[in-house]
């Protein structure tokens, strides 16, 4: 589904990603962990197509297409979704209008008819209930004044409405209370299927207790320095990143 080869990315001539290799197959759940500032969000934004990140080397292939050629909206049409670490507040754009525009844009790209208002509202209510989201939030301006947890639930709602093929969740679990974490996990798990994959960026083991990953990768200083199965998360929780960084330094010598 997604194949990243030797990806080098820089921002303002500063190298941030330094040779990422990652393959995600259909149905798999991958987790990326790693210290602050190691390049996790950079990777997620490059995948979603944010301007300002220069790919200096390497390739990204998604569903058989060269992803780097596509506009952000075309990536969404192709089935890619990014839940932002810091969702943007947009005063004056109503959440419900935005969601409807997004759903219809994706449907249109697939050659489907626009959804009727009645069906749309029914669907939104159903998905909001799934993530225990306050119904009033849908009529407010997009993320405007939302609490941290409300924003993350809103990201999850968007994912549920758009039903992506690959969902990248950038710290969707950070700053959530226990109930909210469970709601978000419930949303993600409801989408899990054989032909849908997830890439979860997280700092915490507790999310992985709710959504079990098939693979865990450690990203540090712009490189994946270790990959393993879910037991790696427990090891990291216990020991931190220091030993891995040390191991890597030793290897380099």
């Amino acid at each position: 589904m997604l194949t990243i080869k030797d990806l080098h990315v820089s921002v303002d001539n500063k190298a941030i990603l330094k040779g990422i290799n990652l393959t995600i197959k259909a149905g798999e759940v991958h987790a990326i962990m790693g210290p602050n500032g190691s390049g996790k969000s950079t990777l997620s934004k490059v995948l979603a197509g944010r301007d300002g990140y220069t790919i200096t080397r390497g390739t990204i292939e998604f569903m058989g297409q060269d992803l780097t050629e596509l506009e952000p909206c075309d990536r969404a049409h192709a089935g890619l979704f990014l839940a932002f670490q810091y969702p943007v507040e947009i005063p004056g754009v109503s959440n419900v209008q935005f969601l409807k525009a997004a759903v219809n844009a994706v449907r249109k790209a697939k050659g489907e008819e626009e959804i009727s208002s009645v069906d749309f509202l029914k669907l939104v209510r159903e998905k909001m209930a799934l993530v225990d989201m306050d119904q009033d939030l849908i009529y407010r301006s997009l993320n405007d004044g939302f609490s941290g947890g409300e924003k993350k639930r809103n990201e999850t709602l968007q994912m549920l409405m758009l039903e992506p093929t690959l969902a990248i969740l950038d710290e969707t679990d950070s700053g959530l209370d226990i109930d909210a974490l469970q709601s978000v996990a419930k949303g993600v798990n409801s989408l899990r299927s054989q032909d849908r994959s997830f890439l979860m960026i997280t700092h915490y083991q507790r999310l992985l207790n709710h959504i079990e990953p098939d693979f865990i990768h450690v990203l540090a200083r712009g490189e994946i320095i270790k990959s393993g199965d879910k037991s790696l998360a427990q090891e990291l929780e216990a020991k931190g990143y220091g030993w891995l960084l040390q191991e890597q330094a030793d290897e380099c010598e």
Partner: protein
Amino acid sequence: MSANNLLEHYKAQRLALAQKPTNADWLTSFTENLAQRVEAYGLPTRQNEAWKYTRLDALAKHEWPAARKQAIAALPSSVAESHKVALVNGMLDEAHSTIADLPTGVTICPLTQHPQCETIKEKVITHYTHNQPKFFKACSLFEIEHSLVISVDANTVCERPLHLHNLLHADETASSHPNVIILLGENAAATVVESFHANEQQHFTNQVVTIAVEKNADLTYIKCANIASQTHCVTSHEVMVARDARFNAHSLTQGAGLVRFEWNVALNEPNAFASINGLFRGLGKGQLDNPILIKHKAANTQSVVNYRGILDDSSIGVFNGKVKVYPDAQNICAQMQNNNLLLSERAEIDTKPVLEIYADDVKCSHGTTVGELDEDALFFLMSRGIDYDTARAMLVDAFAHSIYDTLFDSTIRQWLENDYAN
């Protein structure tokens, strides 16, 4: 000004009006005075602070003969449930107006036919004697006797909005002077919507709107122009607000032509209130000029001016706002804000809020911002599958949203957003 500036012809043509014999003494002396003003001031130049950012080049290319009476086929869409009034090239078109069934106490007719013609003339002349008009205003006021008057008697509430259609229709290049006088008596209340609509001919409209809101009266005035590049619209609003009265204006301009909506608001007596919420959206080579002067002449008066500008292509926006607080006008409150969105590298905004304060117990604030579209917001919307053009339009509308939110009447808002602004 160069010799081939055809506005000189316009000036000569207007001055000729002062030579015409009138059958009323008041008019003779009024126009003589105007003629002196026009001669003394001459055409504004960019050395003149109030015209510093306004390019009159487009106006200088034509002679602007006066538009003739014209018949129109139908009115453009109106605010639902409104009383409709049609002015075509400044002349009342009764066939397309629905003013036969106005509520008692509400009168709409040309000045000379108004039952209170004498009092109104008196009021207007006194105002322009104390507030001497300069070039464009004086040129327009030569036709004061042809003004349309909208009056609401004391203690009368006009429930339905009055929709004044200001139609500029000519078969050739023409000018018009659709002057309007709006008077609200004590404790009266009304909502007036006035919209410009022009056909495809070159048209210059030079308008003066004189407004008096008497004691404890309440006027909401929504003024809008959505015009193409061949239309040039210079309008002055002269507003007098009395004790405890409220004046709520909305100044909504957009397009690729020249639109100058000037507001001169005098809060003459204690506890008078005025607000102007403005939105200007420039396209093409549009020039959207917003000179504003709020005069706090009495204690406990309050004003709120809030404008948003959205400038695309190579359009130019000007916000030239001034709050003047007179000596002894204590305990006043004045806010002036102008936020702008530049959508193109060639677009320009000149924004200058000024406070001039001669009293000491005042609460004044002012601020301006100039920004571009938020890249993060654009990316966020696009990452959800929304294409660039739609995402951009959503963000631009969101920026305009807070001004539309000040329109409390939902039927007016619907008409504006669905019928007029598009």
